């Protein structure tokens, strides 16, 4: 009888200790997760957003399309006519004339307004000098387009 009571006590004690152990384990896991989640989410988010950003930049880049329509000089200025036909707006960030940066303005040819953002349509980039060999247009997407000059007409 005593043996039976001891056996019962042994089993109940062991079961309770297992429950306690499991609860402690869950608590440790959850506590660790809660403590680490902020950092994990921050790092995962950072990694994720950098990949997302890379995809977005790539999408914006491939959606930026334009043709060079005409290039000519008038007095001391160079006029570059471009036609944007892509899906993304863009800006011309820098114009390099020969090997140095040049001042420029962008004009919408239909409204004749000076603008920064280039949408669908024909735009005139007026560069304040005349290159002898090449012009490079650099967009805000980081792309660059080179126009080689052979002769001026």
């Amino acid at each position, binding site marked *: 009888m005593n043996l039976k009571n001891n056996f019962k006590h042994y089993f109940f004690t062991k079961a309770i200790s297992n429950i306690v152990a*499991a609860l402690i384990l869950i608590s440790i896991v959850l506590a660790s997760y809660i403590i680490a989640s902020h950092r994990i989410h921050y790092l*995962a988010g950072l990694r*994720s957003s950098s990949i997302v950003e890379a*995809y977005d930049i790539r999408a914006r880049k491939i959606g930026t399309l334009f043709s060079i329509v005409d290039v000519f000089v008038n007095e001391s200025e160079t006029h570059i*006519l471009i036609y944007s036909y892509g899906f993304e707006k863009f800006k011309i960030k820098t114009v390099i004339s020969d090997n140095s940066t040049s001042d420029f303005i962008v004009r919408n*040819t239909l409204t004749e307004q000076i603008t920064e953002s280039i949408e669908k349509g024909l735009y005139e980039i007026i560069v304040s000098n005349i290159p002898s060999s090449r012009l490079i247009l650099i967009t805000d997407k980081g792309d660059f387009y080179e126009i080689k000059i052979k002769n001026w007409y």
Partner: protein
Amino acid sequence: MKLRLRIGISNLVSSILFLVLLLSILAFFVPIASAQGKLLDMGKRVVELETLRSHERLEAMVHHVNDTAYLSIINMGGAKSFIDVLYLRSKENTVSIKKVNMELSPREEATVEIPELKHLNNYTKALIITSYGNVFYIIDPENSNSLNNSVYLNNSSSEQPLPPYNISAINTLQTLGVNLWSGKMASTKIWYRNNDGETVVFVNETNSKYYVTWHEPADTSYWENLTMNSNSFSVYEHLYVNAGLDGNQDHWYAYIIELPNSENAGEIIVNITVAYYVKAKTASDIAKHELYLALITKDQLQSIAITDDPPTYEYNIPMESNNLEIMYVTKTLTVRIPSWSTLTKYNVENYVINIEASPKTATTKYLAIIIYNTFITNAISSSKSRWATFSIAIQVNQITVR
């Protein structure tokens, strides 16, 4: 019981851990998948656009008709084209932009009036730009020295025919009136039309006579309340045959209008207003007044041996054929005065006539408006003189050359 409890707890722990792991993975990959989807979508749109762009091909031609410049654009490519702007750069390097906004399906052709192209030589560059970013040259001195690979050339020419165009003022075109006479009285002859308002009179020894007068613009005095504008002409003819005389008279009057840039034209649509007046006194005779529209070439026009000699003496110029050789002819009007009657028939009618130039030829075409007056007379009555008056006034409202 203990075992079940342990299994339940272990399942709970693993489920929670699995959920935590799943949420972490989703939080990481969902934005990436979304961005990747956007990139793929953009890539697809760009590929579609570039495919359409590569299938686009336009040919453009500049025509000058009646001192007006027209730009004809033909879509020779395999994709629908949206022509956005016409770009013109003058010799002084000033830029002019004209919004065109034209949509052309494959093989479709359209013509627009571009007043700026009237003096084409003032421009060093004329380009058509489509919404797919293609640039097609009409004029380009640099095409052998292209500035950028993205700009490509087409086969345009500034001097090729042919636009579909309308002519609404014939008084600015080259016109020619021709009298073609055939009959017992005057044998077969051909003349330039007599001067405006000048009546040519033929009288022979036996009192047969006829009178012919041209007016340009038309003399409309035979019709009440009728006025015609400067794009009109009229021919009046009066024939008189004394009693006991016979002999048939066939008289053609051809008014010929040059159709500029009509090389390879396949169809001419003529809109005219015709006022006719026929009055005749007949015995055993018939008076007939007919109108034909015809298309002729310059060779055919020259083959009729036109002379401007005065008709007084040297009028008897033989013709190989009594008829104009023509590419196409269509009878438009017939008015007939039967035998043994004194009748007047008159009316004003409008006609729109399609003339097909078949086969197409690469020569300039001339529209001939031919008035054909016939007076078939018999000497059955020895006591009755017969006469006929034919007057016709024609206003050319519009000629469409396709």
